[in-house]
């Protein structure tokens, strides 16, 4: 994102700016006019920063809350000058690339790295055996940093290479030979729930967490209902797709203290995970993040960082790892596909009397944030409605697919699609306006949630009416 100096004044300032020497740079130091003619400068052009403190004006004085205050980082974003982790570089830094399994379920018989290790420019290669404690996870510690004896999904890393350039590291990956003994994979979460299904993490059951919310008596509610609606809804697996991929740099100082510069959104938990996987005291680890280029839940836990730290320690050099777009898809968390069965009994007036929900979440190969997602999906599944009788049960199941985890909404967009689609069906079947049926059922101040919590600051009706008014719901037809 090179900035084009617009005015002559800018160009003059750039010329005066002291050129920074960089071995990557071929264009820096040339006259600015020449640089401008290049369509794709390989190195960001040096610009002189305007040194003016952002001193607040009188109108920006208190009160601060409610102001449309501009962000201090927007200037850097606008100038293309925000420094993300991948923009950082340390002297002698090496580049890490990870060999991906490409097979969904298998035993690893042998990993031969000799040919790759012999390549000039390859500084170190590690496998799962080199990670002191090769497992992590926010609740269940079921995820290896690098798969060592078993592959759980096709995106699993099996070896990590540190080399002087990214290209050499990539070439080395092709020379690593891995022998697998394929196992029968399981991809369908409903099939995976059966006792006869192959176990993803033997001897553990494929159903790794469950949740139940019970209120009133649903069967009695169904008996009292005027009509009963039953539907099954399903959703797909999606990726967060942040513009900035996962990136970290590991470096050690002479006191044996580890610094990780990372795109993580949760450095506190990240540091704890690093201490556990590397068997280091927490005080020996520093985690630094900068502005993250999009998270949406996908950067909530460590991924490659322990491998980078081990490679850095072995080589005595800083090691950077940046995921490719493909790795973003195959080796990071995704949104849970959910199979949602809804059974709802209503009165003639469209009042929901009872609702029974069954959710099956496809958890992928590892737990990650599935327990939180399961909890939120289950608790929120009846919708923002006063319902006397609720029974909601949810299961999250291992499959040999990319792991699912935290993603903007934690299961809520999926269940909202189900409960609001069914609400619409009920409205049409009973010939009630879709807005009206929601107003008849919606929570009010002091409503009890499905978990029996008394709710405060409830404005679901206000939001319905405000949106309808803005849209022109009543006038539209």
């Amino acid at each position, binding site marked *: 994102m090179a900035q084009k100096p617009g005015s002559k004044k800018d160009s003059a300032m750039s010329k005066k700016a002291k050129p920074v020497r960089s071995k990557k740079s071929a264009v820096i130091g040339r006259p600015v006019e020449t640089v401008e003619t290049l369509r794709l400068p390989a190195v960001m052009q040096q610009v002189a920063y305007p040194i003016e403190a952002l001193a*607040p004006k009188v109108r920006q*004085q208190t009160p601060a809350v409610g102001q449309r205050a501009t962000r201090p980082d927007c200037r850097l974003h606008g100038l293309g000058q925000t420094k993300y982790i991948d923009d950082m570089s340390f002297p002698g830094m090496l580049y890490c690339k990870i060999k991906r399994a490409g097979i969904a379920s298998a035993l690893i018989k042998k990993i031969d790295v000799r040919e790759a290790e012999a390549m000039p420019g390859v500084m170190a290669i590690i496998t799962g055996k080199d990670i002191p404690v090769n497992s992590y996870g926010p609740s269940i510690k079921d995820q290896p940093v690098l798969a060592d004896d078993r592959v759980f999904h096709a995106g699993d890393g099996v070896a990590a290479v540190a080399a002087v350039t990214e290209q050499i590291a990539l070439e080395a990956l092709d020379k690593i030979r891995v022998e697998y003994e394929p196992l029968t994979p399981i991809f369908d979460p409903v099939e995976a729930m059966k006792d006869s299904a192959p176990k993803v993490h033997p001897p553990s059951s494929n159903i790794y967490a469950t949740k139940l919310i*019970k209120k009133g008596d649903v069967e009695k509610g169904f008996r009292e209902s005027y009509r009963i609606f039953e539907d099954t809804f399903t959703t797909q697996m999606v990726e967060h797709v942040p513009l900035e991929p996962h990136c970290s740099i590991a470096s050690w100082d002479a006191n044996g203290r580890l610094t990780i510069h990372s795109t993580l959104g949760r450095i506190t938990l990240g540091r704890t995970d690093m201490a556990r996987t590397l068997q280091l005291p927490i005080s020996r680890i520093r985690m630094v993040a900068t502005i993250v280029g999009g998270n949406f839940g996908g950067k909530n836990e460590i991924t490659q960082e322990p491998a980078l730290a081990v490679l850095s320690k072995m080589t005595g050099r800083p090691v950077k790892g940046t995921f490719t777009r493909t790795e973003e*898809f195959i080796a990071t968390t995704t949104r849970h596909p959910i199979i949602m069965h809804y059974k709802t009994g209503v009165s003639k007036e469209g009042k929901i009397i009872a609702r029974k929900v069954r959710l099956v979440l496809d958890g992928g190969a590892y737990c990650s944030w599935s327990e939180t997602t399961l*909890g939120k999906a289950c608790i929120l599944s009846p919708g923002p409605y006063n319902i006397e009788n609720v029974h909601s049960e949810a299961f999250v199941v291992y499959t040999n697919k990319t792991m699912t985890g935290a993603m903007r*909404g934690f299961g809520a967009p999926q269940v909202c699609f189900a409960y609001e689609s069914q609400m619409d069906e009920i409205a049409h079947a009973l010939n009630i306006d879709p807005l009206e049926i929601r107003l008849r059922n919606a929570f009010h101040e002091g409503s009890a949630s499905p978990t029996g919590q008394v709710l405060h600051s409830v*404005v679901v009706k206000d939001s319905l009416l*405000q949106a309808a008014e803005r849209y022109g719901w009543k006038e539209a037809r």
Partner: protein
Amino acid sequence: MKKRGRGIACMWYPIGFTVAANPSAAVVKVNEDGTATLLTGTVETGQGSLTVLGQIVAEELGIATDDVHVVSADTDTTPMDTGAIASRTTYVTGNASRLAAEKAKEILFQVAAPMLGVKPEQLEARDRKIQVKNYPQRSIGIGEVANQAQFVMGQPALGSASFNPPTVALDPATGQGKPFATYVYATQIADVDVDDETGEVEVLRIVAAHDCGTAINPMLVEGQIEGGISMGVGFALQEEMLFDKNGKQLNPNLTNYIMPTSLDMPEIEVDIVKNFDPTGPFGAKGVGEPTAVPTAAAIMNAIYDAVGARVYSLPATPERVLAAIKAARAKKLPKPKRKETQKRIAAH
């Protein structure tokens, strides 16, 4: 033929997460010139959370937003934070930041009270001054008080605090309990055009009315809502990770994994629902995740309204929508737009 339809969906969403405690801590230092520094362990992930936290601290100290510098995301220097997750930053980290600023302010009040000849509880912080309540002419600049605190009283104005949302663990047998401290609510209404010959859906307009308690920064709330809707549109109509029979992904790239671009985005109209949550910092709750929650449901209901076909499986690709239209025709389900259908039949 293109058919127009409208769909409505509302939702509720909790602030913070369940299963474990999710605290945040914060440190506020008032500098010698009356500006302040906030130390927080949260990470700016693009949503503008640091700006919001700065505004909260500024409001508590009676100074301007730009007077607050926020230092974040370094485990060596910043206090513990559960992180930028679960729409919790404004509410949880915001509460911690406000409490830390309040503690620093208490020191300023103790120092200013004898200077103004009143008791500390008679003071307020406003317009970069410590002033006597109802007597704004009796005031001292906050920088002067901070200086006095540091160099004369030997008591630098700084405060630290933490906040953890009060929850009650759910009963494992019944699921009864208080899993979250508070919730937000929202409604979105979508207008779509559906081509009943190809199944293609175009989202034309989305009206979004979101509750976030007090909007600390309405511009950032609008930004969150627009971003959330773009994710919602992708989830509803386009995005899907596909696997082959061996469990390898077929489309792990942006050529074949189709996301909405600016050309796919509908016209978005944002309304912030007026609300105040007494448990949040200055009445604020949060807005991050909920913005992506009701979009898909509103679009699916609009598709039904347009062509009388219900989509049960996301994403609603043209193939799926066309199949749903054919299924609806086969079942001869009652269509909401009967008059129009009859007109079309008559025209044929």
